[in-house]
């Protein structure tokens, strides 16, 4: 069976220890976490949303979802993979910005519609968001300039609103 990438949106009680239960479940059962992002939801401070990217064949994914659901603090588990959804990641990149490179970097920033959020004599820090593909393309273009450091969130995602059927 194929090991496919899945993006899970998990609604949990906003309580200490919940993240550790989820992380423990993945490590204890030998599942893989590719990326993870967590924050309290804006609509209800008692809840947090975890967006987790993992891989597994069909049978493993079924177990992962059921095991997650079995955790007492987990309220819903939504596998967005086969649904319509919007996904974003955010990356901050500090890149070498010698005078001879600056114009080129700014051009790339412009093409990707992202922005420079910090400037120094030798560097730019660029903020950019998008899906994974866009992010990788962007990083690849900057690599030759010399990337100093990066910080990147995991994916966050929400399903698209279903169109009402007439």
């Amino acid at each position: 069976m194929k090991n496919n990438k899945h993006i899970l949106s998990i609604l949990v009680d906003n309580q200490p220890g919940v993240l550790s239960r989820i992380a423990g479940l993945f490590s204890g059962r030998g599942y893989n976490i590719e990326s993870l992002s967590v924050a309290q939801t804006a609509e209800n401070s008692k809840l947090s949303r975890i967006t987790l990217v993992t891989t597994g064949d069909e049978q493993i994914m079924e177990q992962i979802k059921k095991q997650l659901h079995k955790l007492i603090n987990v309220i819903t588990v939504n596998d967005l993979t086969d649904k319509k959804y919007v996904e974003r990641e955010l990356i901050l990149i500090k890149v070498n910005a010698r005078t001879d490179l600056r114009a080129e970097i700014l051009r790339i920033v412009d093409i990707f519609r992202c922005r420079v959020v910090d400037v120094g004599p030798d560097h730019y820090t660029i903020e950019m968001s998008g899906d994974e593909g866009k992010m990788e393309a962007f990083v690849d273009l900057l690599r030759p300039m010399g990337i100093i450091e990066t910080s990147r969130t995991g994916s966050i995602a929400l399903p698209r609103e279903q169109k009402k059927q007439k």
Partner: protein
Amino acid sequence: MKLKGAEILIKMIREQGVDTIFGYPGGAVIDIYDTLHKTPELRHILVRHEQGAVHAADAYARAKGSVGVALVTSGPGATNTVTGIASAYMDSVPVVVFTGQVPTALIGNDAFQEVDIVGITRSCTKHNYLVKDPLKLARTIKEAFFLATTGRPGPVLVDLPKDIMAAMIEFEDPGEIDLISYRPTYHPNKKQLGKVVRLIKQARRPVILTGGGVVLSKASQELTRLALMTRIPVTSTLMGLGTFPGSHPLWLGMLGMHGTYRANMAVSECDLMIAAGVRFDDRVTGRTDKFASKSKIIQIDIDPTSIHKNVEATCPIVGDCKNTLTLINQMLEKECLEISRAGMEGSVTEESGMEGSVTEKAGMERSATEEAGMEGSTTEEAGMEGSTTEEVCMEGPGMESGISCIQGNPGERDAWLDQIARWKAASPQRFEQGPDVIKPQFVVDTLHKLTCPVSDKRLSNGASDETSSKEGLAQGGDSAGRPQTIITTEVGQNQMWTAQYYLFDKPNHFITSGGLGAMGFGLPAAIGAKAACPEKLVVCVAGDGSIQMNSQELMTSIEAKLPVKIVILNNRYLGMVRQWQELFYDRRYASTNMEMSPDFVKLAQAYGAEGFRTDRVDEVESVLKKGLETPGTVIMEFIVEREECVYPMVPAGGAISEMLLV
């Protein structure tokens, strides 16, 4: 109303109907013990090691069919509970463990006797809590009991900082517990049940597999009813033993690594498996791709994660076993009634032939029923609330003639049962007791004869093909005078021989550490079971190695006046490991020799218990009799054949049809 934190704890425990808790004090729980001291209604049993407290609470819960409670101090008290918790977790036993914790202000400071027990037990509890807010204390305790006992049960741990136990707190009854994130599915999907009825009617070679979930949901009667009504043979996991009477003709014996030949063959050849409350552990399935590979599988479980985990189910049903089996039985009964009514209204000439065969079938069924009727009395005695076979098979008038419609094609079913009888004849589960050295199986077999209800004639006669039973052992006794017997075991060969040769007729009477296989379980478990059921005889079947893991609990048994009988099968080996070394490691007995053991008779005496020992075949029965009759806690040590192996055996990872037979 203001109450001390510790008072709230005790109040909430008592509300659960728990009359006994098991524990060990320490600095962090001293306030709780102070309150307990003033609460004589709640009995506290002082164990000698915290592991024993949890095993005892586990067995208390299982013997009583309710929840068990353990109470220990912080740090080392808490870490000592981990094995007990893990065992209860693997066997889904409702246990609530309360651990003391350092005062909230000190948490995280590496304070004296501080451990992060919530972190440590996260992966072996159903859920756990650290109470930091005194106002949430009552609710948390109630939630803990609610989670432990509902859905798929399991252990829940509550960590209680010392300052919270000492604080005066405004007590507010937490009311009903309702958690949005926790809604176990008790009621099965009706559409799936229709499929089950169809599958049962079409099956040519069906088998029922019963497991611990049937014990937990108290569905043994419903399961038995299903089997008898449909004439489907029954096998069981280790945890399911007793949910179907071990003395019944439809009983196949245990399944799996040390299952009977006929059970393993029947599962390998069946075309329909009805699995209730099982999780398809590797010790049961062996190689999963060869497990029931010719079969459709109906799997009933309250925990969705048990389904499609190891074995693919054709017809998965998420639901409580009792509810589900009740509904299936009702649907099957309805089928029978409809068919028999249709039969009565049908045209005489054409139908008469068929009718004839139906009647014949019903006649056969009646004789089967009669046969089982003998069982009926056993079962009734056993307290299985009047599930006589007659009642089981023939609900309404007119059901007899319809019953065959749910028993598949009569010829095919007979052929299937014949095939099973042939497997049984080809390789019965048996041992041969010679004149010289005691066979461990003989001890278990004799123990069974001495403690099973006697009125069941087939046990002393008909079962002799199963064992090399000496007839008449059990005769002369009267079941009316005999208490019911709960058997606990240690782990290893002793455990497997007990599972094989002690035929359990009712649930909650066989208590063993199944999923974890924790040596040291048997003795504290026996004490817990005795606390739950003081009127019953409690016997722990032990190995010479395992008994040494918690033998300190002898003192608990004596001090608490909870007399238990311990049967040690002393092979002077860590026998089960030695067996693997013999079979798969060229007899290199690395570190499994246990010739150095204490004198168990003197050990018993040192604690103030009685001790008997024999190495003579002709004394097995008399020593057992004497030991069982002697009041108080007794050790009976049997010096048995050193290199006896448990057979049949499926080598780990092999197909269950490929057994080593002797």
